[in-house]
Structure formats: structure tokens, C-alpha cells
């Protein structure tokens, strides 16, 4: 469809493995593919090293000593919370690989703190430090990095995916890269909500994967909201376990809390009652430790002259969508392959249900998944390409974008304001707590009707190969993501993991399955058994699956 755009590419490159996205998942994928002897290019929408959810923040990591007892305890800790959708085999593999990768990071120069015996303590990673090191390691392994080079579409032939095309947003130059295999590591979708580091995460990879014919999984687990000061982007939530929540007059908001009590905060905000927080539960001697351990948590307060331990500050719940949700591209085997040959997925772009079901809790699983799945995907992609041999070179590829891509910006300002309208329209469906956090059949169906219309409208517009076109594609990806989310949410008639149905408030043992979804003009949803309780993986369509 977009042949003229890809042919136009001023920059045209060839490689074995193309990695899309340079966060933890993408950088681990690149290093791991290179270690297998593959030639690798990594492209990032922003800058590999500062872009994505981890870079400005930092993460606790699911790093567990390989002793059997500790591992069993670690696996059990989230199993029920995640709605029993995780699989033991996958948890084992990810725990093993995370342990290995974290030890590697220590050896390669990550400055872990040490315990009193002098042993490095590896429970967390500071984002800026971690991602600066990852960029260095990627470069050291001979991988070529293209920054500010978002992908606009995948390229493929009848044998599978064979590259991608995009634009450099700083030079305006189009580019295209032929590759034997492609790893999607574009992160999740936070719907441009301005959560910390998340505005580059607009679900692009989901859309690319679906356009290539891959499935998604667990898209109902996509309504993560983070507690955050109203005036800030810093969605770090761990410290709110030391918070009390108050109304303006100083009375306590009963039941409000950072974990299970988020709903109480949401209901108050919905009713128009501003909620305030104060970290007054933090013991005095812990305060200096807290200040050092999450420097950026305090940054907005310090810059406003607020002492969060003593002063009340207004809070909101900021949407993080799938970034701290668990849904994403469905993977079909241990190499993180999708069902489309040559296409792999890792990190937040891929489903995390395999290790944490429908809930990520207070983090650490996400970062473990990003570094492990990144390694699996990079290795898998490299092995696939090396088997393919030279046949990749003579392939005749076409662009897969469902919107037609054109080389020139057709109508300048008009398309820009149209994109803004689309973004606003999607946000109006996914941000409100009474639509996305507290879900009902009525609310979901109404939203789906409007989102389907929005998709049709966007689908008809040509998108220019330019920085402006990137935004139009982001808006389309957000619309598509919202549709898979809500179609899946409608099909799950129970409350499980982070998915809450007001009209089905309890868990239903009969629905302990994954929901697979996909499709562009027509969205479909079907079920898939969780491996642990069944030998068969056959899929069955959901009877009431709604289509466009």
C-alpha cells in the first residue's frame, strides 16, 4: 500500500535483525542478537538511552536467588493477584534469565550498591544509569543505532515480515531497512497522558503487529492508573504506601490507599472531591533513605517548595494504560515469536500475562520481563535469520500500513489539527475512571461504537512520511489499542486482575482463560487456555464477540 513511501527512502539499509525500540527490552534484544553473530540495527522513536518508561525513572527488579524455596515464594506472591493466569514454566525461565542478566550488568559496570559483606545488592536499577550503560553496551556489540527514527510501518512479503520503514524526525528523511527478522520492543501504550517518560509510548508496536496479522493477548489488562501529584508527571507510586489521604478540610479519606485503595481515590475524584496526600506514615529515620533512593520522586516537590512528608498536596490518578498493565502482542513460543514468521515481540509490547497474569502489582515483574523477553526475542530472531541464509536479500517487500502513506504533507496544518482531535477523542474514551477503571457493559459498548467510528475516519486519511505523520500514526495506534482493550474488556464478564467490571464484581472460575484479540476494521476476541491446566491450546471464539 505504501510502496511509493518506502521506495522514496533516502536512507536504505540492510541487516539481519532489526530491533524497533531502544528501552530495556530493545537493548537486550539487540545485544543478544549480536552475540549470536547477527548483524543488528536498532531504531528508536526518541533516543536510545533516555527514551521510554524506564530511562527517566528506575525499576525494582524481580531478582531472586535460585534457591528453590525463595523462587517458589516469589512465584506464589503475585499468582493469585494476577488472577491465576501466569504459567510456571515461563516464570521459571524469566527468573533464571533475569538473574543471569542482572549479574551480567554487575560485571559490565552497573554501579550496584553493596551489602555490609561487600556483595552487590541487585534488587533495583536506576533508570538513567541503567539505560546509559545499555546504550554503551549496544554500541560495543557493533549494533548500529538510529535515534529519532520512528517506524511508520512494517515491510513484508508472503513469507513473513522483512523490515520496516520510517522517518528521521530531525532531518525529515525517510528511511527503510530490510531485515531477515524484526523485534518489536516499542513499549506499551499510555495514551499521551504525560506519565513519566511515557509520551513516546502510544501502542505503535501493537498496530504494526496487527497490520502484519499477529494477535494480541490480555488487552483487558490495560487500565493501570498511577497516583501522582496533580501538578506533576512523576508517576512513581511505591512511596504512597507511606501516605495518608485527606479531603481539603483535613479529614481522612477512609479506605484510600496506594494499592487496593486506589478505587476509593478514583470514586472521590469522580464525585468532584479533590483528594490530598501526605507521606506522614514514613518513620523519621527512613526519610533520608527515601529521599536518596528515588531522587526524582522529590524533584517536583522540591521545585515547588512542598515538603511531602508534612504538607498536603493534591493527587490524581494518571493513566498508564498497558505500560503498567500486562496486555500486549501474543507470543507463541519460547523465542517470543509472534504467529507471523520473522516477527518477534518483547517487553511491554508483548503480553506479560505469562509471568504475572492480569496484574503487575508494584513493578519488578515488568523490568524482569523486559530484560528476559528482550534476550529471548533477540536470540530467537538471530537464529531464525541465520537459518534463512541469503534468501532474504532477493525478497520483494511491501509496506503494511493500514493507512496509506504519502511522501508529501498533503494539507499541512489541517492534518495536524485533525490528529489532535483524534487524540483528544481517544483520550475521552480511555482516561475517565468511570469508563476504563470501573467498566460496565453499557460504558464499554458506547465507547466501542465511537472508537469504531474514529478508526474508520482515521483509516481514510493519508499519512505523510514526516514528523507530523508520525503523530497521525500514533493517534491511529491509540485508537486501535483502545478498541482491542474495550472489546476484550467486554468479553471478560468478571473481575480479574486489574480488570474490574462493575456489573460482574467477582472472579468467575469458568473464565480462567486468556483473551486473544486482533483485527483492524473488524475486531475479534477469542479465548485461549492457560497452559497449566490444560494440555490443549485450541482456541474457541467467544460467542458474543462484538465486531465493527
Amino acid at each position, binding site marked *: 500500500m505504501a510502496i511509493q513511501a518506502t521506495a522514496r527512502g533516502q536512507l536504505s539499509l540492510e541487516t539481519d535483525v532489526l530491533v524497533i525500540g531502544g528501552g530495556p527490552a530493545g537493548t537486550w534484544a539487540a545485544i543478544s542478537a549480536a552475540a549470536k553473530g547477527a548483524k543488528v540495527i536498532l531504531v528508536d*522513536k*526518541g*533516543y536510545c*538511552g*533516555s*527514551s*521510554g518508561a524506564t*530511562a*527517566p525513572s528506575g525499576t*525494582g527488579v524481580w531478582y531472586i536467588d535460585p534457591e528453590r524455596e525463595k523462587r517458589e515464594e516469589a512465584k506464589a506472591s503475585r499468582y493469585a493477584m494476577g488472577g491465576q493466569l501466569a504459567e510456571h514454566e515461563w516464570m521459571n525461565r524469566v527468573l533464571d534469565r533475569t538473574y543471569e542478566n542482572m549479574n551480567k550488568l554487575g560485571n559490565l559496570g*552497573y*554501579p*550496584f*550498591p*553493596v*551489602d555490609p559483606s561487600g556483595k552487590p*545488592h541487585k*534488587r*533495583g*536499577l*536506576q533508570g*538513567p*544509569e541503567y539505560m546509559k550503560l545499555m546504550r554503551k553496551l549496544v554500541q560495543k556489540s557493533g549494533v548500529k543505532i538510529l*535515534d*529519532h527514527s520512528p517506524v511508520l510501518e512494517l515491510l513484508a512479503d508472503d513469507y513473513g515480515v522483512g523490515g520496516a520503514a520510517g522517518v528521521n*524526525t*530531525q532531518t525529515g528523511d525517510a528511511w527503510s531497512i530490510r531485515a531477515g527478522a524484526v523485534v518489536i520492543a516499542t513499549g506499551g501504550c499510555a495514551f499521551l497522558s*504525560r506519565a*513519566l*517518560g*511515557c*509520551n*513516546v509510548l502510544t501502542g505503535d508496536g501493537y498496530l504494526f503487529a496487527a497490520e502484519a496479522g499477529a494477535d494480541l493477548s490480555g488487552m483487558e489488562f490495560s487500565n493501570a492508573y498511577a497516583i501522582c501529584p496533580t*501538578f*506533576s*508527571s*512523576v508517576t512513581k507510586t*511505591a512511596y504512597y*504506601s507511606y501516605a495518608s489521604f485527606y479531603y481539603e478540610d483535613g479529614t481522612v479519606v477512609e479506605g484510600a490507599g496506594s494499592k487496593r485503595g486506589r478505587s476509593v481515590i478514583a470514586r472521590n475524584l469522580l464525585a468532584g472531591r479533590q483528594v490530598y496526600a501526605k507521606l506522614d506514615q514514613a518513620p523519621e529515620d*527512613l526519610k*533520608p*533513605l*527515601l529521599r*536518596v*533512593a*528515588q*531522587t*526524582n520522586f522529590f*524533584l*517536583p*516537590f*522540591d*521545585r*515547588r517548595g512542598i515538603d511531602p512528608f508534612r504538607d498536603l498536596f493534591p493527587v490524581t490518578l494518571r493513566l498508564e494504560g498497558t505500560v503498567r498493565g500486562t496486555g500486549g502482542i501474543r507470543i507463541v513460543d519460547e523465542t517470543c515469536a509472534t504467529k507471523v514468521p520473522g516477527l518477534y515481540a518483547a517487553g511491554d509490547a508483548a503480553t506479560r500475562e505469562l509471568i504475572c497474569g492480569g496484574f503487575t502489582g508494584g513493578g519488578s515483574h515488568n523490568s524482569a520481563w523486559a530484560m528476559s523477553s528482550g534476550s529471548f526475542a533477540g536470540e530467537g530472531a538471530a537464529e531464525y535469520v541465520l537459518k534463512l541464509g541469503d534468501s532474504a536479500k532477493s525478497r520483494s517487500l511491501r509496506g503494511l500500513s493500514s493507512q496509506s502513506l504519502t511522501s508529501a504533507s498533503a494539507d499541512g496544518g489541517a492534518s495536524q489539527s485533525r490528529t489532535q482531535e483524534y487524540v483528544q477523542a481517544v483520550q475521552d474514551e480511555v482516561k475517565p475512571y468511570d469508563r476504563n477503571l470501573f467498566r460496565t457493559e453499557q460504558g464499554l459498548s458506547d465507547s466501542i461504537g465511537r472508537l469504531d467510528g474514529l478508526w474508520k475516519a482515521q483509516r481514510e486519511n493519508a499519512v505523510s512520511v514526516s*514528523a507530523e505523520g508520525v503523530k497521525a500514526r500514533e493517534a491511529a495506534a491509540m485508537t486501535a489499542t483502545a478498541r482491542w482493550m474495550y472489546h476484550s474488556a467486554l468479553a471478560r464478564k468478571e473481575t480479574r486482575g486489574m480488570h474490574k467490571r462493575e456489573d460482574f464484581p467477582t472472579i468467575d472460575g469458568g473464565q480462567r482463560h486468556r483473551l486473544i484479540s486482533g483485527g483492524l476494521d473488524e475486531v475479534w476476541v477469542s479465548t485461549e487456555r492457560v497452559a497449566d491446566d490444560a494440555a490443549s491450546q485450541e482456541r474457541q471464539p467467544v460467542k458474543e464477540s462484538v465486531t465493527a
Partner: protein
Amino acid sequence: MIEVVSQSRCVSCNQCVSVCPTNVFDKGEDGIPVIARQDDCQTCFMCELYCPVDALYVSPDSEGVMGVTEEELEQQGLLGGYREKVGWGRGRVPVAKHDYMYQLSVRSGF
């Protein structure tokens, strides 16, 4: 959002232009980058961390411009404060290594 590029401090290295994930800056004709797309700023503070001479200030408000000036920031000592805390820059120790990281992790599980 990003609000200030200090004309007096900037050494025109264009690091900020490179590292900003949402491409907010343009290279300036006089060598000093300009905030060209302020509305795209995601308030991630990364440009501040990468600026070698503490010439940038990102104000904490993610939705609107607060209108701070370089003089005010100088007076309040707010330029470069984040980089110092993170322990980046010559002669500093990265906060990642800080003993409190270990202590907090043992005490609270973070």
C-alpha cells in the same frame, strides 16, 4: 515542562537536542538550542541530566508553563540540582551506588 535554556551557561554541545525523547529542541543558529515544541515536552527531566553545564531547567508542572526566569532559578540555586542528586558529572558518585539504596531495600522491600 522545559522552560529555560541558559544563554550564559550553554556551551552549544547539542546534547539536549540529541537526547530529548520527544524532540522538543531545535539546533539554534547561534549555537544555542531553542525550545521549538514546548507542548511536546513530557517533563521527563532527561535533558537536564545530560546537559554538561547545568544550563537547562525543567519546571515540574507537566500541563502548563510556570513562567520562571533564569535569574530566579540562579537565586534559588535550582539549576543543576537534579544532576547533582543523581550523581552525574565530574567527580560525583552515581546515586545508584549509594548505601541508602541497600538500606532502604532491606527495610522496606523497594
